[in-house]
């Protein structure tokens, strides 16, 4: 097991280098000079040169790339163009909010989505199935910010039960939790739609398998067939797909943070874009890449644990 983990980690390194290089090309090479872009056309030549000098942007693009990669290897994510401080400082303060939001909404989505998917698969082509399917397709169609606005309107603006914006005070658990409810439901509902749809199709596949028919033919109760045979086999693909959707969730988390004016990696990214802070943007993208690669490894490991065929291979 340990060797397996180590191998996965080592395999991730070349992928990361490719990803980071692509990000570098998009953010640093395509827009031309980030210092000029940041300061605008009216800025004096001296001001631009000074900023370039300060951030090492006056070197050739290859030198910059090599410097950047060496820095990254030592844990340096670069310096923000706007406040000239290490990018990691800003990322570090908002990251816990994003992680908190994401984890709670995934749990919510699994609790709502898997049962919905399993039930609609079992009641296939009944009104329960149709309702479930239409609702989950509607959930897929609704952008996160729209769900967020509906929730804010009902629960914050009309009923006044919960705060509409902000993330509350992290040191005050009640305050923090109250601010988490609506964003987590928003993000959770988007994810629920995905989980419900794929659980349904996974279960439909499993239920048509031969061994399920065999189990039924042996006279096992429907309950046993379902819980012991079908659901267990269905769990493996569900786990891997949940990992995939967790990555997709990152996109919706950006919108959720934006709607609720909540501090987080997503709103930091939107802010950096608005201010043309390319170096901060680059740092955030690298953090996203790390998170994505990390999730992939976790999914792979869970997969190994759930499926004995992979474990013993």
């Amino acid at each position, binding site marked *: 097991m340990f060797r397996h983990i180590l191998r996965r980690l080592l395999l991730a390194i070349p992928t990361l280098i490719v990803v980071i290089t692509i990000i570098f090309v998009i953010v640093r090479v395509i827009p031309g000079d980030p210092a000029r872009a940041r300061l605008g056309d009216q800025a004096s030549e001296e001001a631009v040169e000074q900023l370039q000098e300060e951030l090492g942007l006056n070197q050739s693009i290859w030198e910059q790339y090599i410097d950047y990669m060496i820095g990254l290897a030592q844990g340096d994510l670069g310096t923000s163009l706007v406040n000239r401080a290490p990018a990691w400082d800003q990322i570090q303060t908002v990251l816990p909010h994003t992680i908190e939001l994401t984890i709670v909404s995934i749990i919510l989505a699994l609790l709502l989505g898997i049962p919905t998917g399993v039930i609609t698969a079992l009641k296939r082509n009944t009104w329960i199935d149709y309702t479930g399917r239409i609702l989950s397709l509607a959930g897929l169609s*609704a952008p996160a910010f729209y769900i967020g606005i509906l929730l804010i*309107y009902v629960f914050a603006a009309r009923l006044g039960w919960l705060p509409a914006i902000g993330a509350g005070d992290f040191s005050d658990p009640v305050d923090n939790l109250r601010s988490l409810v609506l964003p987590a439901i928003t993000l959770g509902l988007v994810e629920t739609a995905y989980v419900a749809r794929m659980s349904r199709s996974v279960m439909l596949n499993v239920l048509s398998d031969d061994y399920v028919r065999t189990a039924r033919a042996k006279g096992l109760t429907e309950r046993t067939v379902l819980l012991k045979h079908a659901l267990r086999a269905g769990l493996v693909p569900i786990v891997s797909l949940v990992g995939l959707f967790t990555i997709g969730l990152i996109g919706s988390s*950006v919108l959720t943070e934006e709607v609720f004016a909540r501090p987080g990696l997503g709103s930091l990214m939107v802010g950096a874009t608005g201010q043309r802070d390319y170096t901060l943007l680059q740092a955030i993208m690298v953090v996203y890449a790390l998170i994505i690669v990390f999730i992939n490894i976790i999914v792979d490991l869970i997969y190994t644990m759930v499926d004995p065929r992979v474990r013993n291979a």
Partner: protein
Amino acid sequence: MAETPAALAGGLTAPANPRSPIKLVSQRQRAWRTFSRNRSALVGLVLIVLIVLVAIFAPLLAPFDPVEQSTINRLQEPSSTHPLGRDDFGRDVLSRILYGTRVALTVGVLSVLLGGALGTTIGIVAGYFGGKIESVLMRLVDVLLSFPDLITGLLVMAVLGSGQVKLIIAIGLTVAPRFARIAYGPTLALKEKEFVEAARALGQRSRVILSRHILPNIGGELLVLGSLWTASAIRLEASLSFIGLGVPPPTPTWGQMIRDGTRYLAEFPLLSLAPGAALLITVFAFNLVGDGLRDVLDPRSSK
């Protein structure tokens, strides 16, 4: 499809009698039948037709000019002349929603056409030629695929700047790797098939083989993907506009209307909720059709 015994027999022996009760059904007709029997897909198709008509005839349908401001009449409740009220610049909300259909559809359809063409080309070229081209292209595709669509779109918009054409490029680039992935797999299988080998033996050029023999055989999958991704592209356009990276004002777009409306959510909820509903219905319609098309291609997936 319920087949009568006669139809089954017809499959074995060619109908001798020209007036035989066996109807020959073309593949296309059969596909249309499966599709049209799917009620929700038909609803989606009807909705799309209506939405397209709204986009085309927006100037005739809209009761007011969507960009004309009237600051003395700002923020008005719905009335008989302004069924959805007026926004914070005194503009008619209904007219703005109707015109917003144009940006949504233009960006949604064109970005998928662009991304679809680019991605499909990458996918079939990588699959057909193999070797170094394959490993480089597909590696790149996989890396791009690992990023959520919104993040890729946001990054490209951040670099390009705002505007409708840039939006189409940004979303097109987001969509392209998805098409490349889908086109790649079947191409691998198809290039080993006899008819492709025959074409090669006849000395047909690769370009002809790819466009005449490979492409038509993956057309179905691409159509499903195109429909589903048009839904996503419209959602992406609205999301980027919501963030402030879309088509700049004064052109009305749903995402921007939703964003601007949030400032007055408590008193004038329709400013956000009404364009949001239009967006939801449009995305939903394309998703319904995409789902229906998938059922046509793979009957096992649904029933």
